Protein backbone atom coordinates (compact mmCIF):
# COMPACT_ATOMS: atom_id res chain seq x y z
CA UNK A 1 0.00 0.00 0.00
CA UNK A 2 1.28 3.43 -0.79
CA UNK A 3 1.07 5.95 1.94
CA UNK A 4 0.39 9.46 0.84
CA UNK A 5 1.59 11.84 3.47
CA UNK A 6 0.69 15.45 3.89
CA UNK A 7 3.01 18.00 5.34
CA UNK A 8 1.49 20.24 8.01
CA UNK A 9 1.16 23.89 7.06
CA UNK A 10 4.28 25.88 7.81
CA UNK A 11 3.93 29.53 8.81
CA UNK A 12 4.67 31.45 5.63
CA UNK A 13 7.41 34.10 5.71
CA UNK A 14 4.84 36.78 4.90
CA UNK A 15 2.82 35.99 8.05
CA UNK A 16 5.88 36.68 10.12
CA UNK A 17 6.68 39.89 8.26
CA UNK A 18 3.21 41.38 8.62
CA UNK A 19 3.52 40.96 12.35
CA UNK A 20 6.64 43.12 12.19
CA UNK A 21 5.40 45.53 9.56
CA UNK A 22 3.80 48.01 11.92
CA UNK A 23 6.97 47.86 14.04
CA UNK A 24 9.10 48.70 11.00
CA UNK A 25 7.00 51.79 10.21
CA UNK A 26 7.23 52.96 13.82
CA UNK A 27 10.99 52.65 13.69
CA UNK A 28 11.10 54.76 10.54
CA UNK A 29 9.09 57.51 12.28
CA UNK A 30 11.41 57.32 15.28
CA UNK A 31 14.45 57.76 13.02
CA UNK A 32 12.79 60.76 11.35
CA UNK A 33 12.17 62.41 14.74
CA UNK A 34 15.74 61.63 15.73
CA UNK A 35 17.10 63.45 12.64
CA UNK A 36 14.81 66.38 13.39
CA UNK A 37 15.99 66.66 17.02
CA UNK A 38 19.69 66.20 16.23
CA UNK A 39 19.43 68.62 13.27
CA UNK A 40 17.80 71.29 15.42
CA UNK A 41 20.33 70.95 18.21
CA UNK A 42 23.33 71.08 15.84
CA UNK A 43 22.23 73.74 13.38
CA UNK A 44 19.40 75.64 15.10
CA UNK A 45 20.47 75.75 18.75
CA UNK A 46 24.21 75.54 18.08
CA UNK A 47 24.02 78.21 15.38
CA UNK A 48 22.02 80.57 17.56
CA UNK A 49 24.43 80.13 20.46
CA UNK A 50 27.48 80.85 18.33
CA UNK A 51 25.75 83.80 16.69
CA UNK A 52 25.05 85.36 20.10
CA UNK A 53 28.47 84.48 21.44
CA UNK A 54 29.34 88.09 22.31
CA UNK A 55 26.10 88.66 24.26
CA UNK A 56 26.97 85.90 26.75
CA UNK A 57 30.28 87.48 27.71
CA UNK A 58 32.02 85.36 30.37
CA UNK A 59 29.10 82.86 30.58
CA UNK A 60 29.71 81.59 27.03
CA UNK A 61 31.76 78.60 28.26
CA UNK A 62 28.92 77.52 30.53
CA UNK A 63 26.54 77.72 27.57
CA UNK A 64 28.86 75.52 25.49
CA UNK A 65 29.09 72.96 28.33
CA UNK A 66 25.27 72.89 28.61
CA UNK A 67 25.02 72.49 24.82
CA UNK A 68 27.43 69.52 24.98
CA UNK A 69 25.50 67.92 27.88
CA UNK A 70 22.28 68.19 25.89
CA UNK A 71 24.01 66.75 22.81
CA UNK A 72 25.02 63.78 24.97
CA UNK A 73 21.42 63.50 26.22
CA UNK A 74 20.25 63.31 22.59
CA UNK A 75 22.83 60.58 21.85
CA UNK A 76 21.70 58.58 24.90
CA UNK A 77 18.04 59.12 23.96
CA UNK A 78 18.78 57.94 20.41
CA UNK A 79 20.27 54.67 21.69
CA UNK A 80 17.25 54.20 23.97
CA UNK A 81 14.51 54.79 21.42
CA UNK A 82 16.25 52.75 18.70
CA UNK A 83 16.22 49.78 21.06
CA UNK A 84 12.46 49.97 21.49
CA UNK A 85 10.12 51.87 23.79
CA UNK A 86 12.31 53.08 26.68
CA UNK A 87 11.35 52.42 30.31
CA UNK A 88 9.85 55.38 32.18
CA UNK A 89 12.91 55.67 34.41
CA UNK A 90 15.37 55.98 31.51
CA UNK A 91 13.07 58.26 29.48
CA UNK A 92 12.43 60.61 32.37
CA UNK A 93 16.09 60.64 33.46
CA UNK A 94 17.05 62.03 30.04
CA UNK A 95 14.04 64.39 29.99
CA UNK A 96 15.01 65.80 33.40
CA UNK A 97 18.62 66.33 32.31
CA UNK A 98 17.27 68.29 29.32
CA UNK A 99 14.95 70.31 31.58
CA UNK A 100 17.81 71.13 33.98
CA UNK A 101 20.03 72.11 31.03
CA UNK A 102 17.39 74.41 29.59
CA UNK A 103 16.78 76.10 32.95
CA UNK A 104 20.50 76.49 33.66
CA UNK A 105 21.12 77.97 30.19
CA UNK A 106 18.34 80.49 30.78
CA UNK A 107 19.63 81.36 34.26
CA UNK A 108 23.15 81.99 32.94
CA UNK A 109 21.95 84.18 30.04
CA UNK A 110 22.47 87.96 30.24
CA UNK A 111 19.57 89.58 32.10
CA UNK A 112 17.19 91.45 29.85
CA UNK A 113 18.32 89.56 26.75
CA UNK A 114 17.45 86.06 27.87
CA UNK A 115 14.54 85.43 25.49
CA UNK A 116 16.44 86.98 22.58
CA UNK A 117 19.45 84.66 22.91
CA UNK A 118 17.53 81.61 24.20
CA UNK A 119 18.40 78.33 22.38
CA UNK A 120 18.20 75.60 25.06
CA UNK A 121 14.45 75.66 25.70
CA UNK A 122 13.66 74.41 22.21
CA UNK A 123 16.39 71.74 22.44
CA UNK A 124 14.97 70.53 25.77
CA UNK A 125 11.48 70.34 24.24
CA UNK A 126 12.76 68.32 21.28
CA UNK A 127 14.62 65.92 23.56
CA UNK A 128 11.37 65.45 25.49
CA UNK A 129 9.56 64.67 22.24
CA UNK A 130 12.25 62.12 21.34
CA UNK A 131 12.25 60.11 24.57
CA UNK A 132 8.57 60.49 25.55
CA UNK A 133 7.23 60.01 22.01
CA UNK A 134 5.69 56.58 22.59
CA UNK A 135 4.71 57.07 26.20
CA UNK A 136 1.39 58.55 27.32
CA UNK A 137 0.75 61.89 25.65
CA UNK A 138 0.07 63.52 29.02
CA UNK A 139 3.66 62.81 30.09
CA UNK A 140 4.99 64.85 27.17
CA UNK A 141 2.45 67.60 27.94
CA UNK A 142 3.61 67.77 31.56
CA UNK A 143 7.21 67.86 30.48
CA UNK A 144 6.70 70.69 27.95
CA UNK A 145 4.65 72.64 30.52
CA UNK A 146 7.41 72.26 33.11
CA UNK A 147 10.07 73.44 30.64
CA UNK A 148 7.97 76.51 29.71
CA UNK A 149 7.25 77.27 33.36
CA UNK A 150 10.97 77.13 34.20
CA UNK A 151 11.76 79.66 31.46
CA UNK A 152 8.91 81.87 32.55
CA UNK A 153 10.16 81.75 36.17
CA UNK A 154 13.67 82.81 35.12
CA UNK A 155 12.18 85.67 33.11
CA UNK A 156 9.93 86.67 36.02
CA UNK A 157 13.04 86.83 38.24
CA UNK A 158 14.64 89.22 35.72
CA UNK A 159 11.43 91.24 35.51
CA UNK A 160 8.33 90.53 33.51
CA UNK A 161 6.65 93.21 31.38
CA UNK A 162 4.40 93.31 28.35
CA UNK A 163 7.27 93.08 25.89
CA UNK A 164 8.99 90.12 27.53
CA UNK A 165 5.69 88.29 28.04
CA UNK A 166 4.85 88.74 24.36
CA UNK A 167 8.32 87.44 23.41
CA UNK A 168 7.81 84.43 25.72
CA UNK A 169 4.41 83.65 24.21
CA UNK A 170 5.77 83.93 20.68
CA UNK A 171 8.59 81.50 21.50
CA UNK A 172 6.11 79.16 23.22
CA UNK A 173 3.83 79.17 20.20
CA UNK A 174 6.47 78.34 17.65
CA UNK A 175 8.74 75.97 19.53
CA UNK A 176 6.38 74.09 21.88
CA UNK A 177 3.66 74.28 19.21
CA UNK A 178 5.94 72.61 16.66
CA UNK A 179 6.93 69.95 19.19
CA UNK A 180 3.31 69.09 20.04
CA UNK A 181 2.45 69.01 16.31
CA UNK A 182 5.30 66.57 15.52
CA UNK A 183 4.43 64.30 18.47
CA UNK A 184 0.74 64.24 17.49
CA UNK A 185 1.67 63.59 13.83
CA UNK A 186 3.85 60.59 14.73
CA UNK A 187 1.02 59.26 16.88
CA UNK A 188 -1.40 59.46 13.96
CA UNK A 189 1.12 57.76 11.66
CA UNK A 190 1.62 54.96 14.24
CA UNK A 191 -2.12 54.31 14.24
CA UNK A 192 -2.23 54.31 10.43
CA UNK A 193 0.70 51.90 10.24
CA UNK A 194 -1.01 49.59 12.73
CA UNK A 195 -4.15 49.57 10.59
CA UNK A 196 -2.16 48.90 7.43
CA UNK A 197 -0.40 45.99 9.09
CA UNK A 198 -3.71 44.61 10.40
CA UNK A 199 -5.19 44.79 6.91
CA UNK A 200 -2.17 42.96 5.49
CA UNK A 201 -2.49 40.37 8.23
CA UNK A 202 -6.13 39.81 7.35
CA UNK A 203 -5.17 39.23 3.74
CA UNK A 204 -2.51 36.78 4.82
CA UNK A 205 -4.92 34.92 7.06
CA UNK A 206 -7.26 34.50 4.08
CA UNK A 207 -4.38 33.15 2.00
CA UNK A 208 -3.44 30.78 4.79
CA UNK A 209 -7.03 29.53 5.12
CA UNK A 210 -7.06 28.79 1.40
CA UNK A 211 -3.76 26.89 1.71
CA UNK A 212 -5.10 24.92 4.68
CA UNK A 213 -8.24 24.04 2.74
CA UNK A 214 -6.01 22.73 -0.05
CA UNK A 215 -4.01 20.64 2.41
CA UNK A 216 -7.20 19.22 3.91
CA UNK A 217 -8.50 18.38 0.44
CA UNK A 218 -5.20 16.65 -0.38
CA UNK A 219 -5.36 14.70 2.88
CA UNK A 220 -8.91 13.64 2.10
CA UNK A 221 -7.78 12.50 -1.34
CA UNK A 222 -4.91 10.54 0.20
CA UNK A 223 -7.30 8.83 2.62
CA UNK A 224 -9.67 7.96 -0.18
CA UNK A 225 -6.79 6.42 -2.14
CA UNK A 226 -5.70 4.43 0.91
CA UNK A 227 -9.22 3.03 1.30
CA UNK A 228 -9.40 2.23 -2.40
CA UNK A 229 -6.35 0.04 -2.02
CA UNK A 230 -7.28 -1.77 1.16
CA UNK A 231 -10.85 -1.59 2.42
CA UNK A 232 -12.67 -1.36 -0.93
CA UNK A 233 -11.43 -4.69 -2.35
CA UNK A 234 -12.29 -6.47 0.91
CA UNK A 235 -15.84 -5.10 0.91
CA UNK A 236 -16.15 -6.06 -2.76
CA UNK A 237 -15.02 -9.61 -1.99
CA UNK A 238 -17.48 -9.88 0.90
CA UNK A 239 -20.29 -8.59 -1.31
CA UNK A 240 -19.41 -11.00 -4.12
CA UNK A 241 -19.20 -13.88 -1.67
CA UNK A 242 -15.60 -14.71 -2.62
CA UNK A 243 -14.50 -13.85 0.94
CA UNK A 244 -16.15 -15.93 3.66
CA UNK A 245 -16.93 -14.02 6.90
CA UNK A 246 -16.66 -17.34 8.74
CA UNK A 247 -13.01 -17.61 7.75
CA UNK A 248 -10.71 -16.47 10.59
CA UNK A 249 -8.29 -14.95 8.09
CA UNK A 250 -11.05 -12.83 6.56
CA UNK A 251 -12.15 -11.71 10.01
CA UNK A 252 -8.60 -10.56 10.81
CA UNK A 253 -8.51 -8.63 7.52
CA UNK A 254 -11.83 -6.99 8.49
CA UNK A 255 -10.54 -6.08 11.94
CA UNK A 256 -7.43 -4.49 10.46
CA UNK A 257 -9.45 -2.49 7.94
CA UNK A 258 -11.93 -1.37 10.62
CA UNK A 259 -9.04 -0.10 12.73
CA UNK A 260 -7.52 1.70 9.72
CA UNK A 261 -10.83 3.39 8.93
CA UNK A 262 -11.10 4.53 12.53
CA UNK A 263 -7.54 5.83 12.46
CA UNK A 264 -8.11 7.70 9.18
CA UNK A 265 -10.95 9.52 10.88
CA UNK A 266 -8.82 10.29 13.92
CA UNK A 267 -5.99 11.61 11.73
CA UNK A 268 -8.29 14.37 10.57
CA UNK A 269 -8.54 15.77 14.08
CA UNK A 270 -5.47 17.90 14.61
CA UNK A 271 -5.33 17.92 18.37
CA UNK A 272 -2.35 18.23 20.69
CA UNK A 273 -1.18 14.77 21.59
CA UNK A 274 -2.30 13.44 18.20
CA UNK A 275 -0.47 10.17 18.77
CA UNK A 276 -2.37 9.35 21.97
CA UNK A 277 -5.58 10.29 20.20
CA UNK A 278 -4.87 8.02 17.23
CA UNK A 279 -3.85 5.15 19.49
CA UNK A 280 -7.16 5.53 21.33
CA UNK A 281 -8.92 5.31 17.98
CA UNK A 282 -7.02 2.14 17.11
CA UNK A 283 -7.85 0.73 20.54
CA UNK A 284 -11.56 1.48 20.08
CA UNK A 285 -11.89 -1.16 17.41
CA UNK A 286 -10.09 -3.78 19.51
CA UNK A 287 -12.29 -2.92 22.50
CA UNK A 288 -15.35 -3.60 20.39
CA UNK A 289 -13.98 -7.10 19.88
CA UNK A 290 -14.01 -7.49 23.66
CA UNK A 291 -10.33 -6.79 24.27
CA UNK A 292 -9.45 -4.70 27.31
CA UNK A 293 -7.03 -2.00 26.28
CA UNK A 294 -5.37 0.38 28.71
CA UNK A 295 -3.36 3.36 27.52
CA UNK A 296 -1.01 5.18 29.85
CA UNK A 297 1.48 7.97 29.38
CA UNK A 298 4.54 8.98 31.39
CA UNK A 299 6.18 12.37 31.20
CA UNK A 300 5.88 15.29 28.79
CA UNK A 301 5.44 13.64 25.40
CA UNK A 302 7.01 15.31 22.36
CA UNK A 303 5.02 15.99 19.18
CA UNK A 304 5.65 13.14 16.75
CA UNK A 305 5.49 14.02 13.02
CA UNK A 306 2.71 12.48 10.89
CA UNK A 307 4.70 9.84 8.98
CA UNK A 308 6.31 8.52 12.20
CA UNK A 309 2.87 8.45 13.89
CA UNK A 310 1.62 6.31 11.04
CA UNK A 311 4.40 3.74 11.51
CA UNK A 312 3.56 3.58 15.23
CA UNK A 313 -0.21 3.27 14.77
CA UNK A 314 0.30 0.64 12.04
CA UNK A 315 2.25 -1.38 14.60
CA UNK A 316 -0.54 -0.79 17.13
CA UNK A 317 -3.17 -2.07 14.70
CA UNK A 318 -1.13 -5.19 13.89
CA UNK A 319 -0.57 -5.96 17.58
CA UNK A 320 -4.13 -5.21 18.74
CA UNK A 321 -5.48 -7.44 15.99
CA UNK A 322 -3.40 -10.30 17.36
CA UNK A 323 -4.40 -9.62 21.01
CA UNK A 324 -6.46 -12.35 22.68
CA UNK A 325 -8.06 -10.59 25.64
CA UNK A 326 -6.01 -7.64 26.87
CA UNK A 327 -3.42 -5.13 25.83
CA UNK A 328 -1.51 -2.37 27.55
CA UNK A 329 -0.18 0.54 25.53
CA UNK A 330 2.21 2.98 27.16
CA UNK A 331 3.79 6.15 25.87
CA UNK A 332 6.84 7.34 27.74
CA UNK A 333 9.00 10.38 27.12
CA UNK A 334 12.59 9.16 26.74
CA UNK A 335 15.78 11.04 25.91
CA UNK A 336 15.28 12.73 22.51
CA UNK A 337 12.00 11.01 21.70
CA UNK A 338 9.22 8.72 22.75
CA UNK A 339 8.92 5.00 23.54
CA UNK A 340 5.52 3.53 22.67
CA UNK A 341 5.18 0.00 23.94
CA UNK A 342 2.60 -2.73 23.63
CA UNK A 343 2.17 -5.67 25.96
CA UNK A 344 -0.50 -8.15 25.02
CA UNK A 345 -1.46 -11.77 25.53
CA UNK A 346 -0.74 -13.48 22.28
CA UNK A 347 1.49 -16.39 21.48
CA UNK A 348 1.65 -15.33 17.84
CA UNK A 349 4.68 -13.67 16.36
CA UNK A 350 3.16 -10.53 14.86
CA UNK A 351 4.54 -9.29 11.59
CA UNK A 352 5.10 -5.63 12.29
CA UNK A 353 5.28 -2.87 9.70
CA UNK A 354 8.76 -1.90 8.53
CA UNK A 355 10.52 0.65 10.69
CA UNK A 356 11.19 4.04 9.20
CA UNK A 357 10.66 7.80 9.56
CA UNK A 358 12.85 7.73 12.65
CA UNK A 359 10.90 4.88 14.29
CA UNK A 360 12.69 1.70 15.38
CA UNK A 361 10.55 -1.31 16.33
CA UNK A 362 11.52 -4.25 18.53
CA UNK A 363 9.52 -7.17 19.85
CA UNK A 364 9.96 -10.01 22.28
CA UNK A 365 7.78 -13.07 22.69
CA UNK A 366 7.88 -14.39 26.20
CA UNK A 367 5.61 -17.16 27.53
CA UNK A 368 2.42 -16.20 25.73
CA UNK A 369 2.99 -12.49 26.24
CA UNK A 370 4.12 -10.22 23.45
CA UNK A 371 6.10 -7.09 24.21
CA UNK A 372 6.83 -4.64 21.41
CA UNK A 373 8.26 -1.19 21.49
CA UNK A 374 8.25 1.49 18.80
CA UNK A 375 10.83 4.11 19.63
CA UNK A 376 10.81 7.40 17.76
CA UNK A 377 13.93 9.48 17.94
CA UNK A 378 13.76 13.14 17.01
CA UNK A 379 17.38 13.15 15.82
Amino acid at each position, binding site marked *: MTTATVQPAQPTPSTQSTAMMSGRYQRAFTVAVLFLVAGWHLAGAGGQMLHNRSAYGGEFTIQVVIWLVMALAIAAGAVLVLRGTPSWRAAWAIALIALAGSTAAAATSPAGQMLAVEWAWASAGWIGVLVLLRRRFSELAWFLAAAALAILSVQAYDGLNRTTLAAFLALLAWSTGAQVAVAAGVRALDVAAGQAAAAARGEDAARERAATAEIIAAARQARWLALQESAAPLIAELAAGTADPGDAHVRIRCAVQAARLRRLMAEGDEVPGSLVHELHASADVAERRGITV*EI*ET*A*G*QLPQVPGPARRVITDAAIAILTAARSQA*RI*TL*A*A*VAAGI*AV*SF*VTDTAAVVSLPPAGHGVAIEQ*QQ*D*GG*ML*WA*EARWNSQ
Partner: protein
Amino acid sequence: MEQPVTVAIIEDHPVVTEGVESWIRSDPGQRVRPVLTARDLAGLSAAPGPPARVVILDLELSGELVTTQIPALVAAGYRVVAFSGHSDPAIVMETLDNGAHAYVSKEEGRDHLVEAVLAAAADRPYVTRSQARAILADQRPARPALSEQEQQALLLWFQGMSKASVGRRMSISENTVRQYISRARAKYAATGRPAPSKDALLTRAIEDGVIKPADIIPYQSFARPAADPSLGAPD
Protein backbone atom coordinates in the same frame (compact mmCIF):
# COMPACT_ATOMS: atom_id res chain seq x y z
CA MET B 1 3.98 -19.48 60.92
CA GLU B 2 4.43 -15.73 61.20
CA GLN B 3 1.75 -13.52 62.69
CA PRO B 4 -0.44 -11.91 60.02
CA VAL B 5 0.15 -8.20 59.37
CA THR B 6 -2.59 -6.09 60.95
CA VAL B 7 -4.12 -3.50 58.68
CA ALA B 8 -6.60 -0.62 58.98
CA ILE B 9 -8.63 0.31 55.91
CA ILE B 10 -9.55 3.99 55.65
CA GLU B 11 -11.97 4.30 52.76
CA ASP B 12 -15.18 6.29 52.38
CA HIS B 13 -16.84 3.97 49.87
CA PRO B 14 -18.12 0.77 51.56
CA VAL B 15 -18.07 -1.16 48.30
CA VAL B 16 -14.35 -0.47 47.89
CA THR B 17 -13.71 -1.49 51.50
CA GLU B 18 -15.47 -4.79 50.81
CA GLY B 19 -13.38 -5.26 47.68
CA VAL B 20 -10.18 -4.70 49.62
CA GLU B 21 -11.29 -7.14 52.32
CA SER B 22 -12.07 -9.76 49.71
CA TRP B 23 -8.61 -9.39 48.15
CA ILE B 24 -7.11 -9.82 51.61
CA ARG B 25 -9.27 -12.91 52.27
CA SER B 26 -8.33 -14.51 48.97
CA ASP B 27 -4.61 -14.36 49.81
CA PRO B 28 -3.72 -18.07 50.11
CA GLY B 29 -1.25 -17.49 52.98
CA GLN B 30 -3.72 -15.31 54.94
CA ARG B 31 -0.77 -13.03 55.59
CA VAL B 32 -2.81 -9.90 56.25
CA ARG B 33 -5.58 -9.39 58.84
CA PRO B 34 -7.88 -6.34 58.78
CA VAL B 35 -8.43 -5.06 62.33
CA LEU B 36 -10.27 -1.84 61.54
CA THR B 37 -12.24 -0.19 58.81
CA ALA B 38 -13.16 3.47 58.99
CA ARG B 39 -14.62 6.07 56.67
CA ASP B 40 -12.30 8.84 57.80
CA LEU B 41 -9.10 9.44 59.75
CA ALA B 42 -10.99 10.38 62.93
CA GLY B 43 -12.29 6.80 62.96
CA LEU B 44 -8.70 5.56 63.06
CA SER B 45 -7.62 7.54 66.12
CA ALA B 46 -10.88 6.81 67.97
CA ALA B 47 -10.55 3.05 67.57
CA PRO B 48 -9.89 0.98 70.71
CA GLY B 49 -7.41 -1.90 70.86
CA PRO B 50 -3.84 -2.23 69.59
CA PRO B 51 -3.11 -0.10 66.52
CA ALA B 52 -2.72 -1.66 63.11
CA ARG B 53 0.75 -1.96 61.64
CA VAL B 54 -0.27 -0.72 58.19
CA VAL B 55 -2.92 1.76 57.06
CA ILE B 56 -4.47 1.37 53.64
CA LEU B 57 -5.43 4.98 52.95
CA ASP B 58 -7.78 6.16 50.25
CA LEU B 59 -6.28 9.52 49.24
CA GLU B 60 -9.65 11.13 48.71
CA LEU B 61 -12.03 11.00 51.68
CA SER B 62 -15.41 12.71 51.38
CA GLY B 63 -14.18 14.64 48.37
CA GLU B 64 -10.99 15.93 49.98
CA LEU B 65 -7.39 14.96 49.29
CA VAL B 66 -5.75 13.77 52.50
CA THR B 67 -2.13 13.56 51.31
CA THR B 68 -1.14 16.20 53.85
CA GLN B 69 -2.32 13.94 56.70
CA ILE B 70 0.23 11.26 55.81
CA PRO B 71 3.13 12.80 57.83
CA ALA B 72 1.02 12.69 61.01
CA LEU B 73 0.09 9.02 60.39
CA VAL B 74 3.72 8.13 59.74
CA ALA B 75 4.84 10.01 62.86
CA ALA B 76 2.28 7.99 64.86
CA GLY B 77 4.12 4.83 63.77
CA TYR B 78 1.84 3.60 61.00
CA ARG B 79 3.13 2.38 57.67
CA VAL B 80 0.94 3.94 54.98
CA VAL B 81 -0.04 2.35 51.67
CA ALA B 82 -1.91 4.88 49.55
CA PHE B 83 -4.74 3.39 47.52
CA SER B 84 -6.32 5.82 45.14
CA GLY B 85 -8.08 6.50 41.90
CA HIS B 86 -5.81 9.52 41.41
CA SER B 87 -2.89 8.35 39.32
CA ASP B 88 -1.60 11.84 38.53
CA PRO B 89 2.22 11.56 38.86
CA ALA B 90 2.38 14.78 40.89
CA ILE B 91 -0.01 13.35 43.50
CA VAL B 92 1.88 10.04 43.56
CA MET B 93 5.14 11.92 44.17
CA GLU B 94 3.61 14.08 46.90
CA THR B 95 2.22 10.98 48.57
CA LEU B 96 5.61 9.27 48.61
CA ASP B 97 7.38 12.47 49.67
CA ASN B 98 5.01 12.74 52.63
CA GLY B 99 6.21 9.34 53.81
CA ALA B 100 3.76 6.82 52.33
CA HIS B 101 5.42 3.51 51.68
CA ALA B 102 3.80 2.62 48.42
CA TYR B 103 1.19 3.87 46.03
CA VAL B 104 -1.36 1.49 44.54
CA SER B 105 -3.88 2.75 42.00
CA LYS B 106 -7.42 1.33 42.20
CA GLU B 107 -6.80 -0.60 38.96
CA GLU B 108 -3.72 -2.21 40.48
CA GLY B 109 -5.42 -3.17 43.75
CA ARG B 110 -6.21 -6.79 42.97
CA ASP B 111 -2.67 -7.65 41.91
CA HIS B 112 -0.63 -5.40 44.15
CA LEU B 113 -2.41 -4.25 47.30
CA VAL B 114 -1.69 -7.26 49.53
CA GLU B 115 1.93 -7.43 48.41
CA ALA B 116 2.35 -3.69 48.97
CA VAL B 117 0.95 -4.02 52.52
CA LEU B 118 3.36 -6.87 53.29
CA ALA B 119 6.31 -4.92 51.89
CA ALA B 120 5.32 -1.85 53.91
CA ALA B 121 5.08 -3.88 57.11
CA ALA B 122 8.62 -5.14 56.49
CA ASP B 123 9.92 -1.67 55.48
CA ARG B 124 10.81 -3.05 52.07
CA PRO B 125 10.34 -1.02 48.87
CA TYR B 126 7.37 -1.85 46.69
CA VAL B 127 7.00 -0.15 43.33
CA THR B 128 3.72 -0.44 41.42
CA ARG B 129 3.52 0.42 37.75
CA SER B 130 1.80 3.72 38.55
CA GLN B 131 4.66 4.53 40.93
CA ALA B 132 7.19 3.67 38.20
CA ARG B 133 5.28 5.96 35.89
CA ALA B 134 5.49 8.84 38.38
CA ILE B 135 9.23 8.27 38.83
CA LEU B 136 9.77 8.22 35.04
CA ALA B 137 7.78 11.44 34.67
CA ASP B 138 9.59 13.18 37.54
CA GLN B 139 11.29 16.33 36.29
CA ARG B 140 11.78 18.13 39.61
CA PRO B 141 15.25 19.61 39.97
CA ALA B 142 15.76 17.86 43.33
CA ARG B 143 14.95 14.40 42.00
CA PRO B 144 17.53 11.71 42.73
CA ALA B 145 19.83 10.64 39.88
CA LEU B 146 18.89 7.18 38.64
CA SER B 147 21.32 4.99 36.73
CA GLU B 148 20.53 4.02 33.13
CA GLN B 149 19.88 0.41 34.24
CA GLU B 150 17.47 1.57 36.95
CA GLN B 151 15.62 3.75 34.46
CA GLN B 152 15.41 0.98 31.86
CA ALA B 153 14.08 -1.51 34.44
CA LEU B 154 11.49 1.03 35.61
CA LEU B 155 10.46 1.79 32.01
CA LEU B 156 9.96 -1.87 31.08
CA TRP B 157 8.10 -2.51 34.33
CA PHE B 158 5.85 0.50 33.66
CA GLN B 159 5.26 -0.76 30.11
CA GLY B 160 3.62 -3.86 31.56
CA MET B 161 6.21 -6.63 31.41
CA SER B 162 6.56 -9.10 34.24
CA LYS B 163 9.81 -8.74 36.20
CA ALA B 164 11.00 -12.04 34.74
CA SER B 165 10.42 -10.70 31.21
CA VAL B 166 12.16 -7.45 32.09
CA GLY B 167 15.14 -9.56 33.18
CA ARG B 168 15.19 -11.52 29.91
CA ARG B 169 14.91 -8.30 27.93
CA MET B 170 17.79 -6.73 29.84
CA SER B 171 19.78 -10.02 30.00
CA ILE B 172 19.88 -9.94 33.79
CA SER B 173 18.24 -12.06 36.49
CA GLU B 174 14.78 -11.33 37.82
CA ASN B 175 16.41 -10.70 41.18
CA THR B 176 18.62 -8.01 39.70
CA VAL B 177 15.54 -6.38 38.15
CA ARG B 178 13.97 -6.22 41.63
CA GLN B 179 17.22 -4.82 42.96
CA TYR B 180 17.29 -1.99 40.36
CA ILE B 181 13.67 -1.03 40.94
CA SER B 182 14.02 -1.18 44.73
CA ARG B 183 17.19 0.91 44.57
CA ALA B 184 15.43 3.60 42.56
CA ARG B 185 12.67 3.64 45.20
CA ALA B 186 15.18 3.77 48.07
CA LYS B 187 16.90 6.75 46.46
CA TYR B 188 13.57 8.57 46.66
CA ALA B 189 13.31 7.71 50.36
CA ALA B 190 16.57 9.63 50.81
CA THR B 191 15.19 12.86 49.38
CA GLY B 192 12.69 15.50 50.36
CA ARG B 193 10.79 15.76 53.63
CA PRO B 194 12.27 13.63 56.46
CA ALA B 195 9.98 10.87 57.77
CA PRO B 196 10.52 7.88 60.08
CA SER B 197 9.03 5.56 57.44
CA LYS B 198 11.62 6.73 54.92
CA ASP B 199 14.45 6.20 57.39
CA ALA B 200 13.13 2.70 58.11
CA LEU B 201 12.92 1.91 54.40
CA LEU B 202 16.47 3.17 53.82
CA THR B 203 17.89 1.28 56.77
CA ARG B 204 16.24 -1.92 55.58
CA ALA B 205 17.45 -1.32 52.02
CA ILE B 206 21.02 -0.97 53.29
CA GLU B 207 20.68 -4.12 55.44
CA ASP B 208 19.28 -6.03 52.47
CA GLY B 209 22.13 -4.84 50.28
CA VAL B 210 19.73 -3.08 47.89
CA ILE B 211 21.63 0.16 48.20
CA LYS B 212 25.03 1.16 49.52
CA PRO B 213 25.25 4.06 51.99
CA ALA B 214 27.61 5.76 49.51
CA ASP B 215 24.81 5.78 46.96
CA ILE B 216 22.59 7.95 49.09
CA ILE B 217 24.86 10.39 50.94
CA PRO B 218 24.95 12.95 48.09
CA TYR B 219 21.19 12.95 47.88
CA GLN B 220 20.73 13.49 51.60
CA SER B 221 23.01 16.49 51.42
CA PHE B 222 21.14 17.61 48.32
CA ALA B 223 17.89 17.58 50.27
CA ARG B 224 19.33 19.45 53.24
CA PRO B 225 22.17 21.52 51.80
CA ALA B 226 22.29 23.95 54.73
CA ALA B 227 22.95 21.27 57.34
CA ASP B 228 26.43 20.26 56.26
CA PRO B 229 27.86 21.66 53.06
CA SER B 230 31.05 19.57 53.46
CA LEU B 231 29.15 16.37 52.58
CA GLY B 232 29.71 15.66 48.90
CA ALA B 233 28.11 18.09 46.48
CA PRO B 234 25.51 16.67 44.11
CA ASP B 235 27.03 15.83 40.77
